[in-house]
């Protein structure tokens, strides 16, 4: 499953790059792209573990930039 999430207060281009690197290392992530200009994250992982992967990704985002939040609908 591939889903797109909005990122709120993603304030620097370098942080976006760091987030992408960190999320790519999470087990089960098959594709990730953090886009500073679009303020979006595209995350792909298997359906069964998607929620688990997503929560790890959110943590990774928070670790790089505590102010930044992933909008999970």
């Amino acid at each position: 499953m591939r889903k797109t999430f909005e990122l709120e207060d993603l304030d620097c281009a370098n942080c976006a790059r760091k987030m992408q690197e960190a999320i790519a290392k999470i087990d089960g992530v098959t594709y990730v792209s953090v886009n500073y200009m679009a303020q979006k994250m595209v995350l792909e992982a298997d359906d069964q573990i998607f929620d688990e992967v997503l929560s790890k990704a959110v943590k990774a985002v928070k670790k790089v930039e505590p102010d930044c939040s992933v909008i999970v609908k």
Partner: protein
Amino acid sequence: MRKFFAELTKKQKKMLLRIVVSVLLTLLLTVVLNIIPLNEYVSLILFLIPYLVIGYDVLLKAARNIVGGSIFDEKFLMTIATAGAFFTGDYREACAVMIFYQLGELFENIAVGRTRKSIAAIMDIRPDYANVIRDGEEQRVSPDEVFINDIIVIKPGERVPLDGVVLEGISSLNTAALTGEALPVDIVEGDSVISGAININGVIKVRVTSDYSGSTVSKILELVENASDKKARVEGFVSRFAKYYTPVVVILAVLLALVPPLILHSGWGEWIHRALIFLVVSCPCALVVSVPLTFFCGIGCASREGILVKGSNYLELLSKVTTVVFDKTGTLTKGVFEVEAIHPEESKYDLFELAAIAESKSNHPIALSIVRAYGKKGKEPDKSRLGTVEEIAGKGIKAEIDGEDVFVGNGALMELSGARFHECHKTGTILHVSVSGRYLGHIVINDEIKPESSKAVSELARDNIKTVMLTGDKKDRAEEIGKELGINEVYSDLLPQDKVVKVEELIADPASTIAFVGDGINDAPALMRSDVGIAMGALGSDAAVEASDVVLMNDNPLALPLAVVIARRTMRIVKENIVFALAVKVLILVLGAIGVAGMWVAVFGDVGVLIIAVLNALRAFKVKH
């Protein structure tokens, strides 16, 4: 001005307040201390107040980053630079550096945020809902809950949520967001509508022909969202540069603080002060922010004109294009063939009717034109007379009609059929027809040249770009078109596979960058093989959108020179920013080292350069027609 404040986010407003408060406090302290000289420690403590107001978050983040192990972080360097200024007794400068640093960050944040929003608004073609008819009732559902063959209702002002065919109603569609074309498109029953367009006046009922994930709007959004993954070479250069620039400047700063005092046995204060100037200009932010921002603006600007560029690397390549290769049909010409003349040789058979029946099951553009022209006479080809049909690539079609072998195609096919044929005095596509080895005559078909083609070719020539035309047409017809449009080189009599070979020949020249322009029919290999593959009028052709690097949403050839102009302008701005930012930083480093430039100049080198570079980057969003 009021609007400017109203659009600030809460976070931005808070930062603005902090900047104002710390500026006022710093000024107040400066004045007060000029009148009443206070004890050194007291004034240090007083200046720490505005410093902490403006910089507390920078200090916190710097501390956290050190724990995380990244010492060349700009926040950490700002902390060192300002702490150093306190150490050498330049309290005012310490506050000023922090204030300007935050001002620069705020400016960057606002500028990038607003640009992002305005570009996102252009690209916001995502439909929110669809009015689907279920159990005889109209229901409002999310577009991804609608399936193929569902019936949807689109009211005036609503966005077309899914691709489909109009069942009922007359209206006009605004496709500006998709194609950059300002003129509305009129639609009637039987026309197809593309998702993302806006319905202007009438209520229409549409049968859905593709689900949401396969619809035009999803494809475009996906393409736009993935565009930033493909980086230009110059972006790679900037990020490599940024990686080394900061450590190098920091090492130089350390050396500057230590070596001269040890050799010259002079005081430490002056050299530490100079080293701090190095730290202030040690952030490559101006480059790191402005270069991707310029590309983003350039891609946004192109999208507004209906030109989708799949990545900044393609924008970079597009700016270097030396040769544009056109696959004639569908790019320079309308790709819609019209029957110009029918020259029968025998009266026993109706050659037009036979040709129409033979071609009735094919969707080749020539076949469609024959059937359409036949239809204009008020007749339908009688498909029941048609037996097996075999398409012979590059030659034509062999069909069994009333039990007889009918060949419809070019001269090569006639030779294959054994019929004795002769060429026509007219230029164009000549479709010969034979039945059981007997030659019946031929139909002359021509493809109309687009009215804008000639201007597009001359605009490319003005930009020093060579034009090449590839076509399956006969030599005389091809050269006639080439001459009319002012094309530099024309290659005719090409089969689809020959076109790829030709493109490969042209790519082999290392001095040239080749853009191949095709309409997506039969030319996917050439689109992929060329340096920049450009699909024209590609709405609805999945293969072309997939294979190409640049998608021209509307089929006006003038979009091509415009794309080149946008690409070149974007690259020029990128280069301006790189040269400007580097030149100013290096100059300040040199002047700082020899003691000419002070802290204030260094602040300009950091924040001033960033602001100027960002403003310059934003110019890439505006295009001059």
